[in-house]
């Protein structure tokens, strides 16, 4: 007979459990939602946070890395300057104002109160720590519904600008058939207290819809940011997904995409700017479930100081998903001997007529490039700055939308200035 002893809860795990008990009375939700929250926190207590023994968390030993969980936090509405001037700003709990025709916005807190979201709140599986914490703690969010055939002229910006402490939001989004839009999802700490943030987006891109979705994460240097975007691509749906990480102490960003309709296409681009003693993990699972779907995934990572980065990219090609074309690359500029970046590509291909490729590179700044710039009188720090910017801007410029490109350049520039 085996006696299994559960390890005692870590300080952070205990703080999560205690924080839940404290916050429970203020969390909105029907009886069913409350039951679900209780169950999820119970599971968290039983299983603890994931450790490196769990395959999908192997490079991010979350139980060890999460040292503390802050108390407090509020859902106070903060509107900040949008990244793109004309953007339609949306903030959970705030009046959305006049919306363009075809765009419906709902308050996720209402959905929690009437209990229709319990299925959505279920974690993806036993190892889904983000889904579990989010399901237990989620307090608000926004639902977006873009009617079929609607093309939005200006981007929508979902703002999660908090002031530290707990923030847990969810965003169910449906982009109707033939609709076209750009959505910016922004996470930033505008206070001085450390934050603990979860954000889960459930996105469905309808037939022939064309969506650009941009996630800009600029949390504070002591913050924990856990996010998940779960995407379903229907027939001929096109999604351009950009992920920019330029902040946070402990970051895990999960991207789960299923290409469910023929002709679906995903263009995923990521820029990870890492410094200090931060840990940033981008984990992708991508299912090419049907024939004739395509995707490319390119990440550019810049590592300063003692920062550590992880990219896990899993591509599954189902047995009948013939003619799949998927190309994945992770390129890292490692600017410090103490920095680290781990890339784990994982291709699971069950079909026989597909094209799948993956590649990873790690390099320092090219000496010849540096010499050339300096030989024109550009001092070394500026020359290095130009080269680092060039490395990541190549990805950003693929967007071919000038205001957006400029906005992302600014985010990158602001971050890089710390290293000038």
């Amino acid at each position: 007979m085996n006696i299994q002893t559960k390890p005692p809860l870590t300080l952070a795990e205990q703080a999560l459990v205690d924080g839940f008990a404290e916050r429970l009375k203020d969390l909105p939700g029907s009886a069913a939602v409350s039951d679900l929250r209780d169950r999820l926190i119970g599971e968290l207590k039983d299983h603890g946070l994931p450790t490196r023994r769990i395959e999908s968390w192997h490079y991010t030993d979350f139980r060890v890395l999460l040292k503390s969980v802050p108390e407090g936090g509020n859902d106070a509405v903060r509107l900040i300057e949008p990244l793109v001037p004309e953007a339609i700003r949306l903030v959970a709990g705030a009046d959305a104002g006049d919306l363009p025709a075809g765009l419906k916005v709902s308050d996720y807190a209402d959905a929690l109160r009437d209990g229709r979201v319990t299925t959505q709140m279920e974690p993806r599986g036993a190892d889904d720590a983000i889904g579990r914490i989010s399901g237990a703690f989620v307090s608000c969010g926004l639902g977006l519904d873009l009617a079929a055939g609607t093309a939005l002229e200006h981007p929508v910006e979902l703002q999660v600008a908090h002031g530290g402490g707990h923030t847990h939001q969810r965003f169910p989004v449906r982009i109707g058939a033939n609709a076209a839009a750009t959505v910016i999802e922004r996470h930033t700490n505008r206070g001085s207290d450390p934050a603990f943030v979860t954000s889960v987006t459930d996105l469905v891109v309808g037939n022939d819809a064309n969506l650009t979705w941009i996630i800009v994460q600029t949390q504070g240097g002591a913050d924990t940011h856990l996010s998940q975007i779960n995407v379903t691509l229907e027939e001929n749906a096109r999604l351009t997904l950009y992920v920019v990480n330029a902040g946070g102490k402990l970051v895990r960003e999960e991207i789960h995409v299923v290409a469910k309709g023929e002709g679906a296409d995903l263009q995923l681009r990521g820029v990870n700017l890492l410094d200090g003693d931060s840990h940033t993990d981008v984990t992708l699972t991508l299912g090419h479930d049907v024939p004739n779907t395509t995707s490319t995934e390119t990440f550019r990572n810049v590592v300063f100081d003692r920062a550590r980065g992880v990219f896990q990219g899993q591509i599954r090609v189902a047995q009948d998903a013939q003619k799949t074309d998927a190309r994945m690359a992770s390129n890292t500029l490692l600017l410090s001997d103490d920095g680290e970046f781990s890339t784990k590509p994982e291709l699971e291909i069950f079909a026989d007529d597909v094209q799948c490729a993956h590649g990873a590179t790690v390099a320092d700044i090219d000496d010849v490039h540096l010499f050339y710039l300096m030989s024109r009188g550009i001092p070394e720090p500026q020359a290095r700055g130009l080269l680092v910017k060039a490395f990541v801007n190549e990805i950003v410029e693929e967007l071919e939308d000038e205001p957006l490109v400029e906005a992302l350049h600014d985010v990158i520039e602001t971050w890089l200035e710390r290293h000038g």
Partner: protein
Amino acid sequence: MLEIRNLHARIADTDTEIIRGLDLTVKAGEVAAIMGPNGSGKSTLSYILAGREDYEVTEGDILYNGESILEMDVAERAASGIFLAFQYPVEIPGVATMQFLKVALNEQRKARGEGELSTPDFIRKVREAAGELKIDPDMLKRPVNVGFSGGEKKRAEILQMALLEPKLCVLDETDSGLDIDALRIVADGVNALRSPDRAMVVITHYQRLLEHIVPDTVHVLYRGQVVKSGDKSIALELEENGYADIIDAAA
């Protein structure tokens, strides 16, 4: 303006000595041609003048306007007026050409205590210089040297030289890879920059370039030393007889 005294240099962290006691003096206003067979140390000399760290000076000195530049880094030398036109200009993806030119120009001005150029002034200056070198404005929209043909790259080097207005120009095999029309454009660009207070060191294999950029002096480099100096007639002599005679005489 430039005085190289008994210069010895090797590839850093090796015993491979490439420059072995080189002496050379170039006065303000002078165009000095450096010729020599493959492996004589011509390109190495240009890199050492620019300050590339792959080479290590073990003996001797390089004086520029009377002061040693050996302790100056690459950017400091450039800001002080030394310019190297590369034999193989470097492609830098992601760095926009205009941004690169602007940063370079303004950093040099800053280093000399001059104010930054306004954007309209800068653009006007680039347009003018580019026009004279028959550089397609679309080229300037591309990243530095990316997708440029061999001839375009060389013209872009001369464009940078014209904009930065250096005092000592080192041209490393600027004629290589150029067709005759491109050679003429490049040579015209260089000649336009000849001036009494500017010196030029023109490194080349062939007499051909020197028909277009007529040198005041010619120096033959062999095994890391200047083995013969004189006027432009040396270049003609080399064209006819090759290096063998001069090398034999020096040996």
